[in-house]
């Protein structure tokens, strides 16, 4: 059954390809929010209405033209167990909101997992496109095409002055959220990150950590996204994010070079210690894992560590999340058992292949 594969592989097919600037930008994402004109938003819909919306939208998703973009499969959220949902959240294929709070929720996934179409999340329709590396414009091109396909078949809630109408006032207008996931260890190490992050928030962009909405950045991963959706065109929103992300890339590159030039041995020591600990530890909590994986990833990018691919780091980032650990070991684990299993899994991945 296909469902197994979506829930089992930690690394989505789309992540196996290296995108441009992938040593700093892990992924680029576009999310488009749309609603149907003649149905109340999911929050107020009756169960009957939610089902109608789900049936109508999953039917469109089966359309031939969408199949041109890859093969798709749809899942009724009520058919997934808790663990499967958790795993899809950890892979960023569905939102926690869709996993936990939706009625009549469904997700349509492309085989490569690059496209995820969520139904009956906060809005009727949420189209998400994920690309490896720095490809925010490409992601928007694909999301825009899917949006057009849906618009051919259903009547969107749209207002001439307010644009696409959404459940939450923070999404109205274009309904798009563009974001890039950046790995910025050198800016953190050289303590420039706070200055840069506060500058980012002053130009209408938001920054948050990798997993969840919490503000703490785990493993030096930062998600940068647009906050404004009304009064700017999609192109302006994306250009703005693009140029800011481009500048951050340059700052991170410069910081990495400076680290190598000024304190090569110290960086090397840090990276190797983390590599050593990951390779040998018996207990590893998720926070430490994230930090050490970040160090090793930096080591790979700076060519201080050979024989390890950056993809292994991306894969481990996802694999070491609580849901995935339980999926991999096929058992329910408490926090302490998870830390032991996490260490075990990482050791297995990093041990020299013979």
């Amino acid at each position, binding site marked *: 059954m296909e469902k197994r594969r979506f829930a089992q592989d930690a690394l989505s097919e789309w992540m196996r390809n290296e995108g441009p600037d992938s040593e700093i930008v892990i992924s680029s994402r576009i999310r488009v929010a749309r609603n149907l004109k003649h149905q109340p*938003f999911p929050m107020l819909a009756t169960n009957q209405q939610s089902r109608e919306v789900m049936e109508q939208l999953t039917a469109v998703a089966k359309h031939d033209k969408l199949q041109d973009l890859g093969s798709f499969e749809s899942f009724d959220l009520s058919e997934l167990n808790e663990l499967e949902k958790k795993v899809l959240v950890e892979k960023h294929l569905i939102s926690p909101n869709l996993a936990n709070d939706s009625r009549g929720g469904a997700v349509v996934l492309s085989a490569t997992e690059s496209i995820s179409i969520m139904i009956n999340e906060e809005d009727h329709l949420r189209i998400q496109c994920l690309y490896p590396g720095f490809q925010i414009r490409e992601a928007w091109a694909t999301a825009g095409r899917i949006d057009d396909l849906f618009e051919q078949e259903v009547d969107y809630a749209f207002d001439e002055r307010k644009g696409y*109408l*959404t459940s939450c006032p923070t999404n109205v207008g274009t309904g798009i959220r563009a974001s890039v996931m950046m790995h910025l260890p050198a800016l953190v190490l050289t303590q420039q990150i706070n200055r840069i992050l506060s500058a980012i928030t002053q130009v209408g962009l938001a920054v948050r950590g990798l997993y969840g*909405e919490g503000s703490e950045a785990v493993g030096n991963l930062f998600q940068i996204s647009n906050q404004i*959706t009304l*009064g700017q*065109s999609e192109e302006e929103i994306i250009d703005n994010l693009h140029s800011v992300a481009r500048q951050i890339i340059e700052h991170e590159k410069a910081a990495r070079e400076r680290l190598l030039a000024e304190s090569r041995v110290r960086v090397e020591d840090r990276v190797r210690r983390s590599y050593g600990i990951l390779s040998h530890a018996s207990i590893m909590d998720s926070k430490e894992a994230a930090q050490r994986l970040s160090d090793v990833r930096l080591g790979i990018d700076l060519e201080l560590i050979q024989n390890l691919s950056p993809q292994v780091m991306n894969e481990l980032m996802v694999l070491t999340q609580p849901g995935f650990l339980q999926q991999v070991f096929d058992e329910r684990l408490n926090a302490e058992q998870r830390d032991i299993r996490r260490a075990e899994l990482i050791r297995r991945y990093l041990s020299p292949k013979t």
Partner: protein
Amino acid sequence: MLCQECGNKPATLHFTKIVNGEKTEFHICESCAREKGEMLPGTSGGFSIHSLLSGLMDFEKSGPSSSIGPKPQTLRCEDCGLTYTQFSKIGRFGCSSCYRYFAGRLDPLFKRVHGNTVHVGKIPKRSGGEIQDRRELDRLKQELHQRIEMEEFEDAASLRDRIRELERKLTDA
């Protein structure tokens, strides 16, 4: 930076609170945040974007503009039944008609959230054809003005023809 509450752990949560133009910054660690009840974003029952929004709307109620239009307490969307009071509590609309019924009170909120009140982006291709034509018409009229001012009458003439054509199309529709 250390937590300003306990002074032990590193501060991982940074808030900026602005009340009546007065800015206060908080730097605290996770456990102090939990204790203080300033729950972490994303955790259940905690602080969310929606409670933040309702904060913005409460603020609006005390503003001087609140005397215009129907009282927010009686304002209600006739399609889904959501009242404006409910909307300002949960920070979410119930249906697309809410935007119409609450229209008189929404612009200050949009202004605060987005800095703007009017959509300038994408228009649905199929259902938005007329809107697109009207936008194009506005654009052409502006350009016509510019051409006339710059005395480029040949360009202006062809613009005028296109404007007439569009206007005919829109009145026929």
